């Protein structure tokens, strides 16, 4: 069962890397976005420093959403999802494997590259630490919650709208507490409260998301 689970996760990562759509796109996205903001706002270090964590969180969100609607879509269209539903693996675990590979190809690169981008925005050391910790805990939430949205919108007539309407509000808590952690850190306050809220959110979504997404997938297969 574990081997089979790993096979799904590995295949998804392979596909993502081979298409490149996800992992490297995220990195490219970040580098470009960080170039875009100084260009658009003007090169004023004091301001850049202040908006840095916000920009980085906004980009993490966009990166997650960017790849979400492809999470199940191509497997759905080419019939792979039918076949996955027939394997001995419970659909909940399939969802978990997909969410894990989504995180590996989006959330993880975001978290790893974030300090670098923060440096470009001249965020200070403490702020960077807070930001990275918050992203590390927060981005899996995006992948998990996002998988529910992606599953719900498969084959729906207005898939995109649904994805936006369902998923975006669910992302807000993660975003608010994630940004709060970075702010607290750069004010010299403790980041533990914000991080533990994030961790709580992560546990809750770990419990609920696979179940909800699996239910959604089953009804999408009709």
């Amino acid at each position, binding site marked *: 069962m574990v081997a089979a689970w790993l096979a799904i996760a590995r295949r998804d990562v392979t*596909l993502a890397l081979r298409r490149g759509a996800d992992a490297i796109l995220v990195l490219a996205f970040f580098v470009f976005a960080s170039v875009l903001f100084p260009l658009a706002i003007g090169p004023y270090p004091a301001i850049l420093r202040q908006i840095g964590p916000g920009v980085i969180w906004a980009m993490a969100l966009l990166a997650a959403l960017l790849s979400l609607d492809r999470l199940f879509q191509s497997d759905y269209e080419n019939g792979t999802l039918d076949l996955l539903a*027939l394997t001995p693996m419970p659909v909940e675990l399939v969802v978990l494997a997909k969410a894990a590979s989504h995180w590996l190809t989006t959330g993880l690169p975001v978290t790893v590259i974030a300090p670098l981008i923060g440096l470009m925005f001249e965020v200070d050391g403490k702020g960077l630490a807070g930001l990275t910790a918050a992203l590390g805990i927060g981005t899996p939430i995006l992948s998990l919650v996002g998988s529910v949205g992606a599953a719900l919108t498969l084959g729906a007539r207005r898939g995109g709208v649904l994805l936006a309407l369902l998923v975006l509000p669910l992302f807000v808590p993660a975003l608010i507490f994630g940004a709060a952690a970075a702010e607290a850190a750069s004010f010299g306050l403790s980041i533990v409260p914000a991080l533990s809220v994030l961790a709580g959110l992560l546990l809750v979504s770990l419990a609920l998301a696979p179940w909800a997404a699996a239910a959604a997938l089953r009804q999408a*297969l*009709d």
Partner: protein
Amino acid sequence: MSQLAVSDLGCRRGGRLVFSGLRFSLEPGEALVLRGPNGSGKSTLLRCLAGLLPPASGKIAWQGNAVADDPDAHGRRLGYVGHQDGVSHDLSAAENLRFWAALDGGGWPPSDALAAFGLAEIADRPARELSQGQRRRLALARLLLTPASLWLVDEPMAGLDEAAADAFCALASRHMEAGGCLVASAHGELAIAAAQLSLADYAVADGSDAPW
């Protein structure tokens, strides 16, 4: 007690009842070919037999036990190939099969399955570069990876050349000799000794749209 027994089955697709009152049964080693015009519900029936679509009415039983009671066990005894090939275009032919073998193997090794359908030479090409028929062969080769006892195949002949069609029929016959069952849909010839079932006989005049 038959291997696969279907009684009084009705299926709904997109809110419309497609057929109803369908019944048949298969003994080990038997095959059934579904016939009927386009849209008569052959694919719908196959999906229903696979457990991908809940029946609107009736019952599907395996060795006397309703399959709905243990969908996991049913999944394990199944080999299903639908209209869609289930092939990832960005993976090579061999990678595609290896993935499915890792997920649920126990039958032929992937390389043998490829060879059985004459795909050994193009095993390492990305699936996006395969011709229509080559991709279909790849989908069928997946059947060999697990020791499934029930094959459900939607139009196995579509797009295959003669050699591949013969290969499939031979493999299917072998599967049945080993006690397996096969339900396949087809429009043309299918060189397999099998009972025929015409879906048109079970059509619902105008599939009502009401889910209750």
